[in-house]
């Protein structure tokens, strides 16, 4: 009897595992297909090339050129990542290779807390601190007038949000490098810095790529915090002090409000599709890089 029950439980749980797995695999497919289905309308009317590369944004006339939004998204993402990368790399190297283990133990919960702060709070903080800083100090430095609501403000807020996220992954990555490798390098007469550069970082390369790959996807999709500081003005930004209008902000600002305009609904679904495809593409690239690197090392 007991045996039968155990057997039943076994089969039951393995069935559950299969069902859950099935859903996990199915979910991205379903989301992609439904977005594609919804954007068919605008795709058929305006054509893919027009939608992606035109800068004409006149929803009332049925013209939806996403180029300014795509560019804004790329600018903000790249800027955010450019600011974050050196900070994360040096902090992770310092914390795992140079500082005392006590400082690392103290810093880890601090980083976790930073990573857990809701993005709307980063947005508020951005409006209070970053936007005025950009408008009053940074832009005049270059002789440019800016309200402060700009690509740069978006990139800065984004970089602050990315730091705890990427740093956490990097610390784990560097911690898994075996001590024996560093010892081997040091006993050949390498300095500590040479050892870090040529052995620790090299050994961690796949992990570093995946940390920044994940960060990239996150940055590209980040909505609220960026939306609050980036200005949300349609148009091609000429410099990082100009306002921008990234894709997630476009969707969040307009979905449900502008649906009286024909095709707007479908156009926004298309924006979501672009977002999804780009993020998947980033993931694919970093996965590819990881596989290549793991074969090499």
């Amino acid at each position, binding site marked *: 009897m007991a045996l039968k029950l155990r057997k039943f439980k076994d089969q039951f749980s393995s069935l559950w595992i299969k069902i859950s797995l099935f859903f996990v695999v199915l979910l991205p497919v379903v989301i992609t297909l439904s977005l594609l289905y919804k954007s068919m309308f605008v795709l058929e009317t305006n054509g893919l090339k027009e939608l992606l590369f035109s800068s004409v944004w006149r929803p009332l006339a049925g013209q939806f050129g996403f180029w300014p939004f795509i560019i804004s998204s790329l600018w903000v993402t790249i800027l955010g990542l450019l600011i974050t990368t050196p900070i994360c790399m040096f902090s992770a190297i310092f914390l795992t290779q140079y500082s*005392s*283990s006590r400082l690392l133990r103290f810093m880890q919960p601090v980083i976790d807390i930073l990573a857990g702060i809701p993005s709307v709070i980063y947005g508020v903080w951005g409006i209070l601190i970053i936007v005025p800083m950009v408008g009053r100090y940074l832009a005049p430095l270059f002789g440019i007038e800016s309200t402060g609501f700009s690509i740069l403000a978006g990139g800065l807020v984004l970089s602050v949000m990315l730091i705890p996220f990427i740093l956490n992954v990097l610390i784990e990555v560097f911690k898994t490098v*075996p*001590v*024996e*490798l*560093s*010892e*081997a*390098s*040091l*006993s*050949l*007469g*390498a*300095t500590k810095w*040479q050892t870090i550069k*040529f*052995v620790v970082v*090299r*050994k961690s390369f796949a992990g570093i790529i995946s940390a920044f790959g994940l960060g990239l996807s996150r940055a590209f999709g980040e909505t609220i915090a960026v939306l609050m500081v980036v200005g949300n003005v349609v148009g091609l930004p000429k410099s990082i002090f100009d306002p921008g209008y990234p894709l997630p902000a476009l969707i969040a600002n307009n979905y449900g409000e502008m649906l009286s305009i024909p095709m707007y609904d479908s156009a926004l679904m298309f924006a979501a599709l672009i977002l999804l495809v780009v993020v998947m593409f980033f993931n694919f690239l970093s996965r590819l890089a990881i596989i290549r690197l793991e*074969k*090499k*090392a």
Partner: protein
Amino acid sequence: MQQGKISIQNLDLHFGKHHILKNVNIEIPENQLTVILGPSGCGKTTLMKTLNRLVELEETVKINGKIFLDNEDILNTDKDVTEIRKKMGLLSQRPAPLPMSIFNNIAYGLRINGISGRRKLAPLVEKYLRQVNLWDEVKDRLKDPATRLSIGQQQRLCLARGLAVNPEIILADEPTSALDPLSASIVEKQFAELKKDYTLVMVTHVLRQARRIADYVVFMYLGEVIEQGPVKEFFENPKMEKTREYLKGAFN
């Protein structure tokens, strides 16, 4: 008064509150193979890492005493620690090939020491791979990652990598314990040959191996040196009761 190539004098080492090495005094003779024997946990690895000052990477370590290398105290010196480490190649228990190609594993140490350019590096890489009898096995795949080699080949690669920076001393911490018997005997033979040009210090807990290749034996127990002496004397006429017990296999 220093007699050996390396003279360890009144060496004490603590990890935090734990007293790991207790008043260690050893004279390591030049151009001979010294074997350090002792049950596991007695401080052999720690002693090796103290010799090339890798132990300083541990946060809680406290060291007292002197280690003379050619009449220079390498523990208490202003000299650059990398200079000291360069003089002692280290072979660890599990081979640790660097995350790069076979070629670059050897070239790494050469480049660190200022030799660059493929034309200068290639003949040197070949020379050191030949010295450990690895050249014929790897000459067609120098660009492969070193981790693709078998464990035994990796250990020989690590030995060659150490030789390439021209050390005077080779430290080896149970270098054959992770290897299959054939690779182990290859590495062991190489050690016997290297004695001509280097001073060798090797940790093992295989008594038969010690007897086969050692010239000088140091026996440690719980952080203390119990007895040391030439191999024949040590095995045939041990002076201390603890040594006799150990040789009978009492601690295994």
